[in-house]
C-alpha cells in the first residue's frame, strides 16, 4: 500500500439501484488524508447507501472504488476492514446478547488465547475513556441491557480501536443522533484529534451545526447525486439548507409563542418519576407539547414507559385521561415489524378501525396508509413493499403515521427524530403543532435544543428526577444545560 498517497478514498461514478428505486446515480467522492468530510442530504438522498458501498456491505452496480490509491476489484467488508475502513452505522450493529468486551473482540480476530476477554475489555475501555471520559460503562455489561445512548458510545469507541490493522478512515453515520450535546461534543472533538494523526473521517449528520463546525469539506447529496462539494467555510446554514433543497429553507422551526395559556385546558397527564421524592410532577394539558429534556438516559424514557403502561393498568403516581400512543426512537428494537409491508406497519395501531365487520379489510388498510403517505410524505413507489425498503428517516415517518393516525389523544415521543433530515423535521414539527392545536397532547423526550423550542413547557431531568420546570418564555439552552449538570433549586 502506498502510504504517501494523499487520497484515502476515491469513489468514481458509483451507481446503485434497488428495484425501481435509483439510490445512487453516478456519485464521485474523494477523501484525503487528515480530512473530515461532512456528508449531508435529505432522507433517501443516498448517503447511507454510498457509505454502505464504501464499507463493503453493499456492492455497487457500477463505478470504481479505490482505497489508498489502489483500485479495488473485489471489494468486501473483510477487504475494507483490512484497508482500515471502519464504520459506525445509523442502525447500531452491536450484538445485544454479548458483553461490551465480547463485542469489541468481534472486530479484532487477533485477540485470542487465554484472557481474551480481559484484553478486549481493556482495549474498548481505554478507547471509551479517551473519547467519553466518565462514560460509566462496564465492559462486562450485556449490550442489550444498555440504553441506546450508551450503545452508540460503545459502537463509536469500537470503530476507533486498533489492534493489527491501523484505522485510516472512520465513517460516522449519524453518530450523535442518540447522544446528548455533551457526549456529541466529546465525540466530535475526538474526531478532530484522530484526523490530525493522519486519519480521515466521513461524518453524516442532520445537525447542520455539527457539520459546519467540525468538518473541513462538505458534500451535499440530493436524489442520488452529489449536488455540491466545497470547503466547509464556504457554506452557511442557509446555503446548506437551500442546496439540500429543503421545503422550508431558513426557518428555525420555532413556533409562535403563547398560543395557549397553560391551565386553560383540562389536564391530560399527571406523572411522577419513581425516584422523585419531593412531590414534583410532570403535568400536561390538552393541546400542549411538553418537552422532557436533560442529558440522555436520565429517566426520560423510563417516565414515558411508565405513562404508557398506565394506559393499560392503573399505576401509582400516574394519572392519564385518554388513550396513549408511543413513537419509538429506537425503531429497530421498539418500532418496526421487519417482515411486514409499509401499509401493515402503519395500520397496526389502528387495526380495530380498519375492519369491515369483524375482519380486517386490506382495502381500508391500504387507503389508510395512502392517506398518511400523502400527509407525511413517505417516499415509496408502493406501500405494499417491505418496510425495510425505506430509508431510515422514512421508516421513522411510518412510525409517526402509525401513532398520529391512531385514536390516541396523548402521544409519547421517545427521541423520535433520530436520523431524520432537517426538511422532514420541519414538516413533522408543523404536523405536531397542528395536531396539538386540534387538541392532542404531546410528551416529547429529546436531546436537541432545536426540538425543545417547539414545546410549550419543558421539564429537565437529572438522575431519574425532574430538576427544573421551565415555561416557554424561560427556556434557554443555558438553563437546560445548567439544570442537567447540577442540582437545580426550585421554589
Amino acid at each position, binding site marked *: 500500500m502506498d502510504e504517501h498517497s494523499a487520497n484515502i478514498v476515491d469513489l468514481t461514478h458509483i451507481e446503485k439501484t434497488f428495484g425501481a428505486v435509483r439510490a445512487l446515480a453516478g456519485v464521485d467522492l474523494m477523501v484525503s488524508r487528515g480530512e473530515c468530510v461532512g456528508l449531508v442530504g435529505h432522507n433517501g438522498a443516498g448517503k447511507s447507501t454510498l457509505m454502505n458501498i464504501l464499507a463493503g456491505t453493499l456492492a455497487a452496480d457500477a463505478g470504481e472504488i479505490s482505497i489508498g490509491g489502489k483500485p479495488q476489484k473485489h471489494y468486501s467488508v473483510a477487504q475494507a476492514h483490512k484497508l482500515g475502513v471502519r464504520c459506525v452505522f445509523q442502525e447500531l450493529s452491536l450484538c445485544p446478547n454479548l458483553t461490551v468486551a465480547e463485542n469489541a473482540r468481534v472486530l479484532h480476530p487477533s485477540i485470542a488465547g487465554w484472557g481474551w476477554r480481559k484484553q478486549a475489555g481493556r482495549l474498548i475501555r481505554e478507547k471509551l475513556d479517551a473519547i467519553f471520559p466518565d462514560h460509566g460503562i462496564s465492559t462486562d455489561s450485556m449490550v442489550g441491557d444498555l440504553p441506546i445512548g450508551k450503545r452508540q458510545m460503545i459502537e463509536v469507541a469500537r470503530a476507533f480501536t486498533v489492534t493489527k490493522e491501523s484505522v485510516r478512515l472512520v465513517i460516522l453515520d449519524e453518530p450523535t443522533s442518540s447522544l446528548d450535546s455533551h457526549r456529541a461534543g466529546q465525540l466530535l472533538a475526538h474526531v478532530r484529534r484522530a484526523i490530525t494523526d493522519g486519519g480521515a473521517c466521513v461524518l453524516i449528520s442532520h445537525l447542520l451545526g455539527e457539520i459546519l463546525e467540525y468538518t473541513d469539506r462538505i458534500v451535499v447529496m440530493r436524489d442520488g447525486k452529489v449536488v455540491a462539494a466545497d470547503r466547509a467555510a464556504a457554506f452557511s446554514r442557509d446555503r446548506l439548507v437551500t442546496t439540500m433543497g429543503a421545503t422550508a429553507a431558513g426557518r428555525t422551526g420555532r413556533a409562535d409563542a403563547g398560543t395557549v395559556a397553560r391551565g386553560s385546558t383540562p389536564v391530560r397527564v399527571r406523572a411522577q418519576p419513581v425516584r422523585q421524592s419531593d412531590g414534583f410532577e410532570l403535568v400536561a394539558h390538552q393541546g400542549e407539547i411538553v418537552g422532557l429534556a436533560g442529558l440522555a438516559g436520565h429517566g426520560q424514557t423510563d417516565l414515558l414507559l411508565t405513562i*404508557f403502561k398506565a394506559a393499560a393498568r392503573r399505576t401509582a403516581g400516574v394519572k392519564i385521561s385518554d388513550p396513549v*400512543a*408511543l413513537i*419509538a426512537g429506537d425503531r429497530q*428494537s*421498539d*418500532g*418496526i*415489524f*421487519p*417482515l*411486514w409491508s409499509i401499509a*401493515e406497519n402503519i395500520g*397496526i*395501531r389502528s*387495526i*380495530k378501525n380498519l*375492519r369491515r365487520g*369483524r*375482519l*380486517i379489510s386490506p382495502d381500508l388498510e391500504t387507503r389508510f396508509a395512502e392517506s398518511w403517505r400523502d400527509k407525511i410524505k413517505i417516499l415509496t413507489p408502493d406501500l405494499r413493499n417491505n418496510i425495510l425498503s425505506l430509508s431510515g428517516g422514512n421508516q421513522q415517518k411510518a412510525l409517526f403515521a*402509525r401513532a398520529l393516525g*391512531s385514536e390516541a389523544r396523548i402521544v409519547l415521543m421517545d427521541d423520535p427524530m433520530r436520523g431524520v433530515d432537517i426538511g422532514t423535521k420541519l414538516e413533522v414539527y408543523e404536523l405536531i403543532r397542528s395536531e396539538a392545536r386540534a387538541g392532542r397532547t404531546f410528551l416529547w423526550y429529546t436531546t436537541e435544543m432545536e426540538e425543545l423550542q417547539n414545546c410549550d413547557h419543558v421539564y429537565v431531568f437529572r438522575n431519574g428526577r425532574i430538576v427544573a420546570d421551565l415555561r416557554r418564555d424561560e427556556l434557554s439552552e443555558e438553563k437546560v444545560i445548567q439544570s442537567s449538570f447540577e442540582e437545580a433549586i426550585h421554589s
Partner: protein
Amino acid sequence: MNSLLRRLLSQPWVWSYLGALLVWLAAIVFTHGYGAGGMISAGLALAVFSVITGVAQMFVITLGPGNVDLSLPANIGLASAVAMKVMGGSDSLIALGLGAALVSGIGIGVGNYLLIWLLRIPPIIATLSASFIIQSIGISYGRGLQIKPPPGFAEFTTVQLAGVPLLAIGTVVLTLGFAVLLHRTIYGRSVLAIGQNPRAAWLAGIAVERTRCFTYLLSGALGGICGALLAGYFRGSSLDIGDEYLLASIALVVIGGTSVSGGKANVTGLWGAGLFLVLLLTMLNTFGVSAGIRYVVTGLVIIGVIVAAGGEKAR
C-alpha cells in the same frame, strides 16, 4: 400467465404440494398405477390429524423464538381417554364426549400458559414438564384400559363422500377458518406482530399477554379435538395415541412454509406438508422399507427443508 406462475412459485407453500405430488407419482409408478386413488383417500384421512396438530403448533411457533407446544402428544392421549370414557360406547353421548375432550384440551392450554406466565418458565420447558404431569393424570384416569368408541362416532370418523373422507372435508373448512383467523383478525395480526418483535408489539398497543394466552388455549383445544377424533378413527383410546404428532406437527409447520423463528405463518402449506409426509410414508411402505429407514428419511426431509428455507433467507 408467466407472471402468475412466478407469483405462484414464490409462495412458500407451493413446494410442499409439489413434494406430495412427486412422492405420490413415485409410489404409483412403483405399483404400476394400482391403488392410486386409494392412496390419496387414505392419505387425506391420515393427514387430517397431523393438519389439526399442525395448525395448533403453527400458531404457537409463530409467537416467536422459544414458543412451542411440546405437550400436544400427552394432551391428545388424555383427551382420547376422556372422550371415550365420557361417551361410554353410547351414541347419545358423542357430543358430551367431544365437549369433554375440548375442555380437557383447553384446561391443558390454561395450565401451560400459567406455567409460562406465572412462573416465567420458557415455553419449551413449561410444555415439556406439563406433558409429564398430563401423562400421569392419564395413567391414573384411564388405568391403561382401552375404551372403544360408540359405533356412530367410529363411523363418522371414517365415512367417505365420493371417495373423500368426510373428516378431511370438515378439516379443510376448519383450516380455511384458521387462515382467516390468522390473516384477517386482530388476534391473527397480533400473533404475527409478537412473533416479529414482542416489545414493538407491546408499544404498538397490542395485548401481548392476552394473545399469548389465547394461543396456548387454542393449541390445547385443537389437541383435545384431535385426541377424540383419533380415538374414533383407530377404534379406541390409548395414552400413546398422540406420540407421533409432536414430530409431525413441527414438521408440518416447517415444511408448510411457516417461519421457525416466528412472525410469518402459512396455513395453506400445512395440507401440502401433511399430504407429503403421509404419502412419503405410504411410498416407503410400498417400497417395502423397514421402519428404521422410514424414520431416517422423514428426519432427512425435515432437515433438508430447513436448510433450503434457511438458504433462501441468507440470499
